[in-house]
């Protein structure tokens, strides 16, 4: 068998392998960690590296316009709607890239960051399980499967949030997270039951092709959006997010950002694909609801960030605000989806929103990693007690400046590119929206400049005299994200044309997704 055949074979089986490899790795990890800690760390990094290469292989093919389906247990294509089905379009692949990059960076970061902790075999097992869950949520084409992977992600991430069990606040945050996740998951299960009762199907494409927009479907839509928005930390259901982000180990927070975005992906998949053409039949536009939720999320996130004194909690509220931008962008796309006069605006808004999913993950992730590095070096997270760290931690300071500029949407960082797209397109829908968005960005800048001043500038404090730069693995992790941020910022067109635009088109042209499973479907052009 030559190399080309092997790659074709891998490509064909990659949707299953992307979930299977981290799952297998997760259960081998406890066995390997009996041997040696370093061997285990290398093994986990290699497992995620293999997963990442499979994701890139699959994505490179999907972004050219193909949709991949994978039926578990049988190659027989008859009756795909009743089988366990993975369906990967450009949007799924885009989200999978984000998740896998975040997990890989988090594991590299953990090498030094978590070194002094015990129970690391369980830590790495849970990280791999969580990655498998997120990737499964993003690749699956079956609504019940989505629920199962959502539960895998929730349970493993709740355990990881409470990983520092010697701290009461961490356990509280973990408990809050599992309660919220369970409530959300039950909402989703209930709405799946509503679909199954009406259409005898669990397959997303099958439900989407048959949907009638009955009263029960409206209930299901409300439940799905509420539950997934709750898991994504949208205001007013964000109360768990600052706790969970703030109290989890920084490496875990990075993956949690990916998990919230996987839930956000669920919102978009439900609105655009499952409800597809039916969504604009409502008297109250679902798109406007998303836009308004986005605006509230933005304003409240920023306003709460201003008054925080804890480093990680402050960034967590910044992360809440960033979610608002994504909702604003994609909500605008949904508002104008079926309006032929505003197609260009809608597509631009969608591109901005989708690009911002990736930028949010990178920017917020980098800031959390910097907060973790400061905690590692000083064992301190309160901004009132920090100061003068730029003298001792040069690289970390540079990474924080990059993160600061990126999150507040300053050129030449990646946040600028996506936020500009969002401002421009929402201005055409309603100028007030883009004014609020710009205002929030300015406030974010103010917040993070304050943090920068409090933590890095000022006189050298005697208690931080012996603080050293963090170990190499943490620098490599932060450096990787910072490099991606700068590359995306310098060449936004490259990313938008090759990755973001196919993903936006995949959401808008939902008919292709359905036709891949049900060839007779005619709508959604």
């Amino acid at each position, binding site marked *: 068998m030559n190399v080309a055949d092997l790659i074709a074979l891998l490509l064909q*089986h990659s949707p*299953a*392998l992307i979930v*299977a490899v981290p*799952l*297998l790795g*997760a*259960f*081998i*990890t*406890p*066995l390997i960690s*009996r041997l040696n800690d370093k061997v285990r760390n290398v093994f986990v990094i290699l497992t995620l590296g293999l997963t990442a290469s499979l994701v890139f292989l699959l994505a490179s093919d999907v972004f050219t316009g193909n949709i991949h389906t*994978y*039926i*578990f*247990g*049988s*190659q027989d294509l008859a009756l795909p709607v009743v089988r*366990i089905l993975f369906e990967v379009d450009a949007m799924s692949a885009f989200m999978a890239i984000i998740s896998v990059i975040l997990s890989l960076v988090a594991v590299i970061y953990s090498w030094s960051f978590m070194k002094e902790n015990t129970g690391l075999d369980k830590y790495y097992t849970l990280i791999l399980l969580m990655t498998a869950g997120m990737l499964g949520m993003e690749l699956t084409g079956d609504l019940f499967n989505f629920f199962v992977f959502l539960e895998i992600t929730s349970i493993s991430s709740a355990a990881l949030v409470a990983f520092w069990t010697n701290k009461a606040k961490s356990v509280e945050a973990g408990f809050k997270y599992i309660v919220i996740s369970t409530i959300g998951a039950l909402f989703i299960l209930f709405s799946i039951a509503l679909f199954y009762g009406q259409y005898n199907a669990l397959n997303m494409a099958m439900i989407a092709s048959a949907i009638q927009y009955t009263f029960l479907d409206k209930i299901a839509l409300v439940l799905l959006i509420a539950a997934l928005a709750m898991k994504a930390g949208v205001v007013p259901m964000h109360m768990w997010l600052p706790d969970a982000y703030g109290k989890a180990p920084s490496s875990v927070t990075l993956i949690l950002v990916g998990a919230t975005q996987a839930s956000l992906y669920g919102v978009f998949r439900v609105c655009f694909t499952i409800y597809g053409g039916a969504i604009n039949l409502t008297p109250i536009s679902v798109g406007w609801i998303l836009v308004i939720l986005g605006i509230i999320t933005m304003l409240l996130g920023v306003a709460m960030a201003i008054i925080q004194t804890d480093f990680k909690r402050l960034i967590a509220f910044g992360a809440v605000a960033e979610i608002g931008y994504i909702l604003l962008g994609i909500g605008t796309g949904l508002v104008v989806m079926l309006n032929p006069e505003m197609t260009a605006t809608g597509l631009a808004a969608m591109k901005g929103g989708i690009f911002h999913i990736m930028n949010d993950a990178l920017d917020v992730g980098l800031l959390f990693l910097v907060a973790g590095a400061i905690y590692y070096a000083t064992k301190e997270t309160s901004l009132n007690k920090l100061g003068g760290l730029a003298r001792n931690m040069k690289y970390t300071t540079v990474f924080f400046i990059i993160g600061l500029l990126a999150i507040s949407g300053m050129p030449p960082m990646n946040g600028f590119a996506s936020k500009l797209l969002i401002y421009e397109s929402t201005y055409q829908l309603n100028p007030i929206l883009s004014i609020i968005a710009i205002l929030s960005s300015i406030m974010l800048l103010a917040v993070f400049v304050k943090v920068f001043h409090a933590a890095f500038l000022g006189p050298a404090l005697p208690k931080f005299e012996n603080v050293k730069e963090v170990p190499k693995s943490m620098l490599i992790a932060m450096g990787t994200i910072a490099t991606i941020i700068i590359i995306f910022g310098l060449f936004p067109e490259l990313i938008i044309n090759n990755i973001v635009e196919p993903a936006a088109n995949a959401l808008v042209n939902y008919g292709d997704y359905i036709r891949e499973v049900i060839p007779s479907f005619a709508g959604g052009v």
Partner: protein
Amino acid sequence: MSGMSKIVKTISGIAFPFITIYGLYIIAHGHLTPGGGFQGGAIVASGCAMILVSYGSIWTMNRVREKNLSILESLGAVCFILLALLGLGFGTVFFNNFLVGTNSLFGVVPAVGSGLANINTGGVIPLMNFAVGLKVIVGLFGIVLVMAYASRTKEGKK
């Protein structure tokens, strides 16, 4: 948690093999009758929990190491996924039932309508039931054991 009276210990010693055999039967017949790896595993684990209650957590902890249980648990999960991957290797796709129709281990396809259950059927499904059963037995028992042991230290402090 210390042990209970001699009567309880003796009776649970007599009942334990029966419970275990019944649980293993449920696992082995998972593809024919109601039940399967999880249900049978829970029955066996409840038998182990009975021994734990009657003999006390200190006695049990001296004989069963929690670390060994977690290794077995991982092995159960690894076996399950490896079986699914073997479907890709020997068959066509992930989770493919590659043993069915081979007339080897569990590979017989029974005649349609046969009322007599043939245990040598089902392909990889019985094997996956075994893997799940192993994981559930040691997983549930490990949880109960650790909780009993932790509550013991709490009592000691009082």
